[in-house]
């Protein structure tokens, strides 16, 4: 009985993921850190991407970056560059690479890697302070990354 429940739970998780999703370990970065292939296989939803960028519980990109298009969100940070015009400066593939793992584009960047699951020093279980074993769940799933990339691509000067 327990086994059946476990199997049912597993298959429902698998069912939610797109068949074409690229696993974090399988992402192909080019020499400049860009990622050509969609991570989810489903086009990004820019409106949802905007919500992720501004939401403290999701991407929280505004903690470090100013985004003029989201002017209604208070307390935008000054750590990274403003994202205004990001869609002019970077291609979709470059944006996908930067959001997935910015260190492949900017060596030593302070920016966290949002689609990476291994290679951490003292990895923790979210914000509990307790230890966690790798692979960790990525900070954003494949579709969230695609949604954020779709939103960033709309940011034109």
């Amino acid at each position: 009985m327990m086994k059946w429940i476990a199997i049912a739970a597993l298959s429902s998780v698998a069912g939610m993921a797109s068949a074409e999703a690229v696993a974090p370990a399988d992402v192909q970065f080019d020499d400049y850190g860009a990622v050509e292939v969609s991570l989810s296989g489903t086009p990004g939803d820019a409106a949802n991407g905007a919500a992720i960028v501004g939401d403290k519980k999701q991407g929280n990109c505004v903690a470090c970056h100013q985004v003029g298009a989201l002017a209604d969100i208070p307390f935008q940070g000054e750590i990274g560059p403003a994202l205004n015009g990001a869609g002019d400066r970077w291609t979709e593939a470059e944006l996908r690479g930067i959001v997935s793992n910015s260190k492949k584009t900017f060596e030593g960047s302070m920016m966290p890697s949002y689609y990476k699951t291994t290679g951490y020093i003292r990895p923790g279980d979210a914000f509990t302070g307790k230890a966690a074993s790798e692979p960790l769940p990525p900070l954003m799933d494949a579709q969230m990354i695609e949604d954020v990339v779709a939103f960033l691509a709309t940011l034109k000067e």
Partner: protein
Amino acid sequence: MNFKATLACAAFVASVAPAAFAGEDAELVLNGEIPIVTTAPAPAHLDGVLGDEIKSGWLFRSDETQATQMDDFDNPGMIFVDQAQASWDTVEGSEGKSCASCHNDPAESMKGVRATYPKWNEEAGEVRTLAMQINDCRENQMGAEPWKYDKGDIVSMEALISVQSRGMPVNVAIDGPAQSTWEQGKEMYYTRYGQFELSCANCHEDNFGNMIRADHLSQGQINGFPVYRLKNTKLNGSHSRFKGCIRDTRAETFNPGSPEFVALELYVASRGNGLSVEAPSVRN
């Protein structure tokens, strides 16, 4: 009623008047008589990583928070200092002693002590924090139970001891037998922990002065510890703050009192050599 109104008025003036001079160029004088050095030449060992000057976290706080620390009657941290003065005089343990039995008046005996901690203890062969030294006294001189690291009793006692050094420059030794512990702390300072892969330096060296969401990042100096935080309305030890920071990188933290945090405390304290002891400071 008139008296109360006058008091309220006086309090209003007192809390607003200093605010006019607050901000990043503000001067901190406690109770109108103890000048606090909140900007000092950077220690040589920093090799310019913070520029020419080190700055107290007080300078990065809001006018209101700054004002709260200017007068002991406004500073809620002083309540805990009073409590610690009572426990200083309380006999505990098998030896029938209080702190006062050996150390008399802390205003005399503890003057300058906080400024040099953490420091090497020759007999023990280790770097000790002030908290470790307090517990050593409790266990080996008083025959009393040690206090739990960074919990109420011991943090209050650290504040009482620190108050006796307010205005004196932090001056922890980083060479000689303390050097290897200091090196360990330095390595930790630059290690990018957790799923966010953030080091102390990412925020407090590379980005002090910048806003991270609603937080104004300071240099992460610990000359003001123990610190009264408006966030949790109690005194906090530096190890608890380290733990909170590392937890927020989505990492497995270290424990208050662990050898790792002792090393980190020595290193971070040394980055503030030259700033005044401020404890109990007030922060958000």
